[in-house]
């Protein structure tokens, strides 16, 4: 269907629009994934710190 990779990337002249749309979606999902993974790591790290020092954790709140 496509004549080589260049033709595919050109998207029949609509490259900017098509790749702009797909690119933003990819970026958005990627960013969301990274943020959620980071938050999960932070929460787990905090909890592990707390379980190591249970007395301090009780006063720390949250």
């Amino acid at each position, binding site marked *: 269907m*496509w004549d080589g990779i260049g033709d595919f990337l050109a998207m*029949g002249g609509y490259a900017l629009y*098509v790749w*702009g749309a797909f690119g933003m979606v990819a970026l*958005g999902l990627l960013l969301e*994934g990274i943020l*959620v993974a980071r*938050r999960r790591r932070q929460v787990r790290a905090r909890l592990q710190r707390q379980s190591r020092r249970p007395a301090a954790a009780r006063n720390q709140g949250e």
Partner: protein
Amino acid sequence: MTGRSIPWLKFTAPANFYTLAQRLVPWLWPAAALCAVAGLYMGFFVAPPDHQQGDAYRILFIHVPTAWMGMLLYLLLAAYGAIFLVWRIKMADIMARAIAPTGALMTFLSLWTGALWGAPTWGTFWVWDARLTSTLILLFLFLGYMALHAASDDREKGGRAASLLAIIGAVNVPIIYFSVEWWYNLHQGVSVMRSDGPSMADSMLAALLLMIAAFWIYAGAIVLRRAQAEALSREARTEWAQAAAAGRLTREQRERAAVGIEGNRPPLESGGQT
């Protein structure tokens, strides 16, 4: 009232929910990826170009799923909000809160892709089209929910106020949609974007359905992950949460935690009237 007699109530206990999500999510990621790869292959290499729009129409394969997800997630958000308000199930608030950012992202992406699709086909990035306008308002509703939840110092109270807002918003969404549609028709007469476009080739439809499936599964996975983090953080001082954070949550700990949740409910005579 044990978890066994009403199985779905079992997952209102954060510990049980956490374990369920922990088992589910590792399957959801590859499933979403598989659907996405298949859908993209169909969309780019099998589906033919449109005879009017050329290859620009391929934006549809991400525009439609994101737009759907935005609306669907808002309805889900309001449903969880209602559950939280009526039965005070903490997990419902956690889920609603976890849904909101993904919903806002999906709504934003549908606006973005819509604009980039509109540019080559209508000659402009933005028109005050009924659908675009009401999607924009949907984005504001998501942002309002998140802002209200974040602004309150008391998580429980903030959650209840935000849930109420989500419900009012959900009642308003159809009113907003119809009023905007009506407004648009009065002003423009003829719509630039008809929903009954050229009939879709089978390969296009297949690609679209695959992409929709991919977005559904992705949204499920990311929402569950966010809800897990939120549940851990709220239950930080409990035994199960600390065990879960260390990656060794046992069945006994989970059941103990779930019993604690049962005990947290008001006694039946008052709980029945809510």
